[in-house]
């Protein structure tokens, strides 16, 4: 059994921790986003992209979070499937709708950037296609969970699906390296690839999205804990 911090393995302690952590992460996200947007909208237009560089501050964090959230989903699914951590399955279930929303957001904002820059809304390019596949894995996970009444079977089947979908993550990440892609290569984590005037707001927005996700994830996991308590109470009431 992998040792986990008490607040992650004990629902009571998790509820106590998340009660103050969720609003704190939310407040941090708001401060980071306002600062990032202020700096981003104060930066000069890019010499090639013009004003469309402003879309990068909302598109790139959404695209990175799309993969990051799936990593959380896959790790939580692994812990639920193999080690049967109490909260891991709830964490996986709670992450899926947030990941799906962020992935869809990345696809739409990317399309709104691509039209003026590439001259097309969509192209079956390796990066775009692999992110679309990522979105479909999120949707499939949510649909599979919703389709099975038996909680244990739903947890097991969806965890296996989540782990299968994790194969797509390296494809998303290295798609711009492995294939001749219209999508630009990785610049956010390449030193010197971004001018500081764009890098600072982009990093702040990245942290804002991460903090916002942390807050919403905790709120959703709390909801899952309440749901399971409600269903357990309903079963007890039916047997009484």
């Amino acid at each position, binding site marked *: 059994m992998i040792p986990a911090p008490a607040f992650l393995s004990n629902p009571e302690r998790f509820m106590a921790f998340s009660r103050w952590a969720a609003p704190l992460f939310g407040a941090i996200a708001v401060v980071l986003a306002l600062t990032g947007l202020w700096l981003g909208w104060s930066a000069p237009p890019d010499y090639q992209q013009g004003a469309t560089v402003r879309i990068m501050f909302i598109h790139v964090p959404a695209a990175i979070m799309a993969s990051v959230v799936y990593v959380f989903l896959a790790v939580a699914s692994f812990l639920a499937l193999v080690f049967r951590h109490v909260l891991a399955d709830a964490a996986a279930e709670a992450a899926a709708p947030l990941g799906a929303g962020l992935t869809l957001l990345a696809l739409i904002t990317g399309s709104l950037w691509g039209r003026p820059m590439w001259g097309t809304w969509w192209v079956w390019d390796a990066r775009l296609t692999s992110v679309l596949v990522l979105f479909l894995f999120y949707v499939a996970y949510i649909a599979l969970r919703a389709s099975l009444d038996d909680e244990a079977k739903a947890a097991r089947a969806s965890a296996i699906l989540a782990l299968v979908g994790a194969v797509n993550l390296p494809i998303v990440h290295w798609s711009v390296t492995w294939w001749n892609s219209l999508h630009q290569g990785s610049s956010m984590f390449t030193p010197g690839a971004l001018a500081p005037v764009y890098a600072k707001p982009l990093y702040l927005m990245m942290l804002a999205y991460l903090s916002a996700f942390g807050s*919403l994830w905790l*709120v*959703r996991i709390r909801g899952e804990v309440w*749901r399971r308590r409600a269903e357990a109470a309903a079963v007890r009431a039916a047997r009484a």
Partner: protein
Amino acid sequence: MLDLDVGKYAAFIWPAYAITALAFVVLIAGALNHSRRWKKRAEELSSK
């Protein structure tokens, strides 16, 4: 100083920001509703 003049790209930039704002409103409302609904239900059932 803020530069809100996006010129000919307004038709792409403002919708991108509007959709992002809408997405976050939906994600926040969804998470809060989900949590509140089940908390209320659990409390109702456990008080019976």
